[in-house]
């Protein structure tokens, strides 16, 4: 399976989705990690209902926005998300990762990149058409296995990125840090058509010759400010971008296999569990979520919640309700088949009392449990008995229904 990484914020989702559609139009067995902080879960669930039909997968790779906060570049069309690519060694387990910018489209099969022999090379990329001494950072084939050997690599790259005088943002950091360790990929893997406009207005014969010399671009990169998704743009190949943009997901599926519309629809769960918390510490929450994909976890709080509870939105069976109130809170309580009393710290007693009125089972770990629960259907597990609790939940939700 090919592994590809993209990074985008919610405001750039239209562009990223276009990149994804272009990749999957020509390549089917692909796992795409989408690094982001704020893209709604509903988007991921929906697109996966389509692309899973032909063996592809879009992974919601949430990271804490604090990691790239205040990183900037001197170009207003490059924001801090440009530095998210440096998180790949930290966030992606796979050995070989192709990183792609979201202002490009893939216009052909690219699975041969899977077979390229890295030998000792750490990164392969295409030289920047505008500056032959630099590699363009928009397409990078990363020997992630080797890169991950330095456990602090992501942190080092981000520290260098804090320099506000960087000429070309993440690309400057990349070229400085890996000087002499980046090896070239053929230019067709990063056809920098965005230079069309510069080449003309700056009368750069060098750029024009370079652009003309490449005959069969596989990846088309609309770099510089002249983007095909702008209201009006100047460069070539605008219609190609819009072809992929306008491609409906059902048509995309149809390209590879028979589209099954029955697989599109609301998620189905065997049951719902509820947790109301006042602190970010909830015992073994992530393990339980991963262990029980058929169970929906609703976690609510009266306040805003810290990043770890937001990040868990990457699991499609988890839903966080910060600042919960009124109708939504009533619904969480009314829909609960089980209450997990696994949040540490003070409890929200009046909520717990409301849940108790529904006579549903409560499960807790020793450290999180009430000293005196005053409730007959209250089971306490030892702190390390995650498996036992998971089995109990399975048993209750299958039997209880």
């Amino acid at each position: 399976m090919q592994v590809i990484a993209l990074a985008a914020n919610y405001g750039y989702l239209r562009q990223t989705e276009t990149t994804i559609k272009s990749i999957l139009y020509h390549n089917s067995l692909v796992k795409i990690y989408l690094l982001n902080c704020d893209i709604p879960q509903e988007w991921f669930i929906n697109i996966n209902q389509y692309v899973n039909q032909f063996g592809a997968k879009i992974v919601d790779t949430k990271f804490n926005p604090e990691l790239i906060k205040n990183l900037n570049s001197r170009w207003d069309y490059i924001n801090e998300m440009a530095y998210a690519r440096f998180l790949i060694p930290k966030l992606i387990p796979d050995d070989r990762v192709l990183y792609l910018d979201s202002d490009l489209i893939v216009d052909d099969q690219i699975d041969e990149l899977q077979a390229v022999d890295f030998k000792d090379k750490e990164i392969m990329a295409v030289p920047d058409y505008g500056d032959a001494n630099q590699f363009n950072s928009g397409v990078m084939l990363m020997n992630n296995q080797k890169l991950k050997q330095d456990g602090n690599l992501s942190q080092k790259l981000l520290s260098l990125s804090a320099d506000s005088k960087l000429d070309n943002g993440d690309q400057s950091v990349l070229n400085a840090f890996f000087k002499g360790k980046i090896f070239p990929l053929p230019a067709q893997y990063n056809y920098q058509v965005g230079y069309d406009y510069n080449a003309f207005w700056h009368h750069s014969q060098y750029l024009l010759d370079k652009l003309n010399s490449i005959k069969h671009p596989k990846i088309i990169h609309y770099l510089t400010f002249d983007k095909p998704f702008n209201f009006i743009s100047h460069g070539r190949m605008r219609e190609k971008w819009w072809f992929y943009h306008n491609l409906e997901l059902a048509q995309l599926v149809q390209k590879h296999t028979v589209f099954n519309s029955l697989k599109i629809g609301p998620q189905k769960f065997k049951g719902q569990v509820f947790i109301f918390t006042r602190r970010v510490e909830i015992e073994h929450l992530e393990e339980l979520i991963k262990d029980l994909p058929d169970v929906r976890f609703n976690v609510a709080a009266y306040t805003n919640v810290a990043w770890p509870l937001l990040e868990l939105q990457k699991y499609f069976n988890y839903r966080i309700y910060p600042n919960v109130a009124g109708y939504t809170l009533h619904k969480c309580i009314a829909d609960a088949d089980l209450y997990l009393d696994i949040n540490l710290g003070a409890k929200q007693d009046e909520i717990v009392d409301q849940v108790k009125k529904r006579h549903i089972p409560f499960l807790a770990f020793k450290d999180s449990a009430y000293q005196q629960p005053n409730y007959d259907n209250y089971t306490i597990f030892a702190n390390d008995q995650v498996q036992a609790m998971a089995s109990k939940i399975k048993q209750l939700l299958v039997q209880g229904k």
Partner: protein
Amino acid sequence: MDKKIIALSANYAYLDKAETTIKSILWHNQFVKIYLFNYDIPQEWFVNINQYTKQIGSQIVDTKFDPNLLKDNRVHWFYLNKMTYARFLIPAMIKESRVLYLDSDLVVVQSLDELFSVDFAGKKILGVTDYGSTKEINAGVLLLNNKGLRQIPHLSQKLIQYAATHNLPNHDQSVINDYFKNEIGHLPLAYNYMIGLDTSAYWFHRPDIRTFLDQVKNPKIIHYATQDKPFNTLSSGRMRSTWWFYHNLCWPAIVQKYSIFDLKQIEPQKFKGEAFIFTAQAEIDNLQALVVALPELRFNIAAYTEMAPKLVNFIRYPNVKLYKTVIDKKLNCLISNADIYLDINEGLKEEKVINRIKARHIPILSFESVADHKQNYDKYRVFKDDQVKQMIKKIKSIIDNR
């Protein structure tokens, strides 16, 4: 059958929200003509969406306006922008006599047919009482007696000015309520179910708002007013999944609900020929008449400079393609694809471009007042300024016989 007329307004950044509103409308309603007020949404989006909607008898009209019209208008809330005033442009830009204006943070969840036969009973605007400030109607759903409104001279301009000079707390909504007072009538609460007030009702202890919400058993339009939007990364109110249902609807599925979806109609635009115009000025004689009369001809208009809004707004016609600050590669392409050159721009002519056209031996047509009368080119044909019909006829014959 008369189409039902609906108006929306959105900028490019809000397009996925407006598209969700549109999907919801068309999921429950056929034969709708939707005017989408905007100044920056790419033409490609309109061309594509219409290839689907026309299969079920509906149409999305690219209604471009000059954003400078709203330059003096202000907003107080971070989740609003100046586009909120675009609804004031309806009387000036839409001719039909009955128009339903809808915000783009709402979804339609039932047929709206009844609204299109409601009696205005002498009122100019019908709306739903704002659940949170009950002396006003909420401006998110407005049924406009556009025939009556259009009889008031310069109404659009007056409303925009009124908003700019009064700077009222509830923006466009205050202006409408202030301005029309007794000419406002009421629609049932179900036509603007203000679910977005869920959270305010709770946090600000407003049982009155809850009473309104609880009264509506069968909403027709769900309005996610306030900042708690279902498309936010996280939101607190009810009916988030309703919004995402419409957002995630695929266009073929919407067509399929009413008709057999024809994939062959989804394709790149096709034209019978291409006309080229190179200009240094926004004024191009009779351009609109030509563009409307010749939908099968692609009009490529290029300039070395930026273009004024007046010219940019021609992009609302799907057969007009604009190339501002055009570059060489593109220019070469436009010249070599041209079947005809229209020398109808006012002001300076670009000699180099015209010479390259002549070298290709293709016809050049012009009008008397903008023609270059010194042209020594046997395929240069000048029409009188009022001979637009003759020029159209000539263009058709050139394209058909090429």
